[in-house]
């Protein structure tokens, strides 16, 4: 029953044998032990399980692991690669963009994809881009603020010439 797949996850190539019916989210959480990706509704509504599939946000509860063969996956764990919080993570923390935190990985992955494409989104563009991710705590106000703050932060970081930040 097993089918061999090779997937690049957060930059690292991984091979595994999977049953065709194995959902991508279960592959990520149970086989790769990357439990930052959450299962919320399990019915394609909530977006908690959002990961990037070749750079594009998808609901990993609504794809099969076999479909990821030969593709690139990015999970929330990639954000703090290198040990420091990513500006999106820092902004969610700073702006209180989360309460219980369950939706947060999906929110941040959608935000990450948005900012990669549109580094200076308006509030409306942020709300539109995040409309597939449901949060039951915050009322979204602080999430939107966090994405705006992250955008500003990332723009400033990009404006600093390489090496300049190491001076002090």
């Amino acid at each position, binding site marked *: *029953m097993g*089918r061999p797949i090779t997937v690049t996850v957060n930059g690292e190539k991984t091979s595994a044998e999977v*049953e*065709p*019916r*194995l*959902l991508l989210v*279960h592959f990520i959480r149970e086989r790769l032990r990357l439990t930052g990706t959450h299962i919320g509704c*399990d*019915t*394609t*509504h909530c*977006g908690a399980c*959002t990961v990037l599939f070749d750079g*594009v*946000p*998808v*609901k990993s*509860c*609504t*794809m*099969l692991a*076999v*479909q990821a*063969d030969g593709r690139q996956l990015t999970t929330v764990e990639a954000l703090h690669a290198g040990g420091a919080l990513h500006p999106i993570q820092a902004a969610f923390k700073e702006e209180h963009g989360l309460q219980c935190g369950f939706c947060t990985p999906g929110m941040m992955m*959608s935000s990450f994809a948005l900012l990669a494409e549109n580094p200076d989104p308006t509030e409306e563009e942020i709300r*539109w*881009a995040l*409309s*597939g*991710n449901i949060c039951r705590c915050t009322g979204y106000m602080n999430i939107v603020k966090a994405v705006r703050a992250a955008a500003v932060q990332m723009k400033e970081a990009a404006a600093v010439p390489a090496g300049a930040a190491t001076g002090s």
Partner: protein
Amino acid sequence: MLPAPFEYHAPHTTEETLELLDQLGDEGKVLAGGQSLIPLLKLRFASPAHLVDVNRVPGLDVIEERDGVLRIGALFRHKAAERSTMLASRYPVIAEAAGQVADPIVRNRGTVGGSLAHADPAGDWGSVMLALDAEFVLQSKSGRRSVKARDFFSGPFSTALQPNELLTEIRIPAAQGRTGGAYLKLERKVGDFATVAVAVHLQMDDGKVRSAGIGLTAVGAQNLKAEQAEAALRGRPLDDAAINEAAELAAAAAEPKADQRGSEAYKRNVVRVFTQRGLRRARERARGGA
């Protein structure tokens, strides 16, 4: 939730796909974007023995306007429709519907062709294609045939598509003259199915309606084409009287059922109001550009 076990096939060409579908018959099911099918598999509403994943077949995601026909490939995704500047300027009903299908994450994956083949009566694309008078190319190992959108849908989740056929292409008569369109959708929240939606595609000639297409979502056992309303507009100036008459006829063509989203009378009234608004919006767009 896990789907029931199935065998997985990932063909690399259309021919290989058609060969597989021919062999598998009733046991096979095509997987395109999977945004309706995978939830159904997980809930075990569907448990096909074989899945034929067409996502690795190159060339199925084309969009091309040539020789009087707009061709949309089976793997053309909602997101691509939402972002196409050509669609926004020439086929606004498609562009406007695209941004209202499900939610942005689902739109990244879901396909127009898959949604049509799934044929949910509350799905958006069926109405759009009925308004555009589209036809669908259904290919099998033994040949290909074209079926008009109005002959394609036969009930909830039921179409003319045979188990050994693949919907490879959507063909839409190219927009001519001054064209406008609109898709109005009432939904309780982003990602919910439509309570009611109305698709309008309008072609104007010298201030008169050359042709009008009107499709209705979620108010019947399948997406409906409001043919009497369309006929009432043909050859007339699109004034208030014509708009109101078409809106009444569209409302009469609707067959809504009361549910938690609204009563029958309420939904019928939304059809009427959305047809009015859709026609006005389409008229504005037809005036605005070619």
